[in-house]
């Protein structure tokens, strides 16, 4: 009543964006380089942050060039850091908008959006006697969260990275090794070649007896699943996949209207508004020429092309598209 049409929170956000009851946000407090292309971001979360379990990830919404983009990163700090902050460790991937921004350009003081930590790539309550961590590249990040959180009597890690200096947290890992808390094999793929999971037994003879957490590129995880399945111990293997679906933007594709449950093939030149209407889906519309924003609809999966500029938009949570000027750029899912 006092602030209509705004909410009191719209005003409170001006002064205290991290207060209890606000949308969950965080403030970047430091960016610490780890390797040439990876950095650890120290985040002070808002009051609503409920903490995390070692191995979980958190989705962060970062404004890159003015556009809010969401990505998931593993939490790399131990669970009960006294100062209430947590860290994520980000590796800049090629053409990665968010990762490059966080590693190279993010400034302390910046506000970011947060979701609560989630994911079931976590350690069980009851400590297993023997543990194996099988990781590659930035796949080490959730495992680092685990290593920093709890100790095991018998922990082995096999980690792949192109070269020694690409190994994120290398010093700390070797510290753990020196302290006798971890046995580590580094596979330097630039010189040693890719790890052949089928020959894992040569590195870790008792691998099949170990409770295993594996995280890395899809190829590695596929091979691991095959290996564990093949030896009849699939329940010992826990995997985490970072980017399950890679969107391939092409011209045209199968369009799914998920609310109505209809699917049709569309070419790369027909506006999705027409595609939907032709398929008998009730589509909101207005000007039909891209100026009124009366047709905006969530894009749940896939990619679309703006017919005016050729710009590709990929599905991400919260992404809305103007169906009257967008065409399918590969298979996509429209919430209608």
């Amino acid at each position, binding site marked *: *009543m006092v602030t209509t*049409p705004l909410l009191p929170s719209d005003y409170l956000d001006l002064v205290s964006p991290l207060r209890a009851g606000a949308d969950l946000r965080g403030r970047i407090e430091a960016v610490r380089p780890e390797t040439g292309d990876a950095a650890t971001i120290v985040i002070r979360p808002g009051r609503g942050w409920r903490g995390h379990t070692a191995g979980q990830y958190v989705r962060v919404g970062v404004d890159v060039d003015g556009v809010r983009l969401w990505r998931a990163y593993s939490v790399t700090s131990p669970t009960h850091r006294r100062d209430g902050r947590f860290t994520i460790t980000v590796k800049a991937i090629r053409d990665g908008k968010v990762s490059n921004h966080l590693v190279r350009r993010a400034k302390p003081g910046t506000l970011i959006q947060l979701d609560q930590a989630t994911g079931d790539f976590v350690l069980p309550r009851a400590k297993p006697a023997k543990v194996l961590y099988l990781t590659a590249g930035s796949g080490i990040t959730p495992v680092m969260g685990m290593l920093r959180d709890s100790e095991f009597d018998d922990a082995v890690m096999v980690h792949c990275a192109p070269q020694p200096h690409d190994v994120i947290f290398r010093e700390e890992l070797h510290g753990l090794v020196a302290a006798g808390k971890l046995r580590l094999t580094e596979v330097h793929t630039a010189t040693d070649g890719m790890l052949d999971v089928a020959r894992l037994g040569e590195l870790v003879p008792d691998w099949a007896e170990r409770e295993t957490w594996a995280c890395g590129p899809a190829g590695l995880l596929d091979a691991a699943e095959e290996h564990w399945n093949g030896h009849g111990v699939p329940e010992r293997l826990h995997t985490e996949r970072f980017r399950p679906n890679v969107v391939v933007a092409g011209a045209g594709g199968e369009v799914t209207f998920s609310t109505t449950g209809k699917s049709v093939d569309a070419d790369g030149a027909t506006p999705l508004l027409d595609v939907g209407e032709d398929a008998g889906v009730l589509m909101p519309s207005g000007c039909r020429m891209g100026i009124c*924003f009366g047709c905006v609809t969530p894009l749940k999966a896939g990619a679309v092309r703006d017919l005016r500029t050729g710009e590709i938009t990929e599905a991400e949570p919260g992404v809305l598209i103007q169906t009257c000027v967008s065409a399918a750029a590969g298979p996509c899912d429209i919430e209608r």
Partner: protein
Amino acid sequence: MTAIDPTAHLTAEQIEELGRELDAIRDEVIASRGEQDAAYIRKVIAAQRKLELVSRGVLLFSIFPPAWVLGTAGLSVAKIMDNMEIGHNILHGQWDWMRDPKIHSTTWEWDHVSPAAQWKHSHNELHHTYTNVIGKDNDLGYGIMRVDEDQKWHPFHLGQPLWNFVNACFFEYGIAAYDLELGRNLSKHRRKSPEFRARARAVGRKIRKQVLKDYVVHPLLSGPSFLPTLAATFTANLVRNIWSHSVIMCGHFPEGVQVFERRSINGETRGQWYLRQMMGSANISGSKAMHFMTGNLSHQIEHHLFPDLPSNRYAEVAVKVRALFEKYELEYVTGPLPKQVYSAWRKVFRLSLPNRKPHVKAPERERELVAA
């Protein structure tokens, strides 16, 4: 409608070429949209909220005349910012590209009695698609005024200077009624349609909340300053209404702006659509502050060409657009606010009286309009 078609010298190819050149201007802005633009709108929103808070705070003591003056002025400016540079432009989707759900055309609500959703329909969709097409774009005279010599005169029109003045004072209510298409929908059978009723209820709710805030809760909070605060909020709303009404009149009413016949837009090409926006809009010249307070609708021509480009970019776009007007020998209607307001009001007065039929014969007119 002028007797001479100001675009008659353009060939169809030229019109399409013009369209391509305008597309290029648009693409350039879109490619360079970024962090600074996002920072701009966030800064404006934050400034507006602070100004409103402070002004309402000052009005708690409006029993003291200086506080009344200060608070009323601040609140007027805050309300104008909310409606113009922020609300109007966000609701156009100008900032949707930021993907910030809080600054998005689908979630924004403004300090106005017309609910955002209804306004988006009548403004973004009808007015912007059918700009200045008589019978399709109701913004031409808001259905209560005669705005062109060709429209049939009716004794009702004698009063239109008065209607226009009243509409200016209570502009937000005028807009709400207009968005509801109240006149048309009050006919017997339409009044009952569930769709209309739902929309009318939404307006009712919005009015109730706005009135409660401005005329009950806030004055009550002011205690002994109850009456002065009430007067202050009323004044701020009045100022905001007259201001936005004036700015909007300047957009399409001044002399030199063209209107179009229904038939002229059948099968319109992209180039022709652009041309219609160019000929159907007028700008206001002035300082940066002036552009800001009009929500950059002083760049009405640019806004009509590119309604979804961020408002802070219209000034730079205007330079290029104006060059195109010159290149294609078209008249870029612009002038300082007083001149444009005067021009628009003069038209309102002039057309309140009957006029002689235009000199051009019907078949010729039609050709001219098709060309437009």
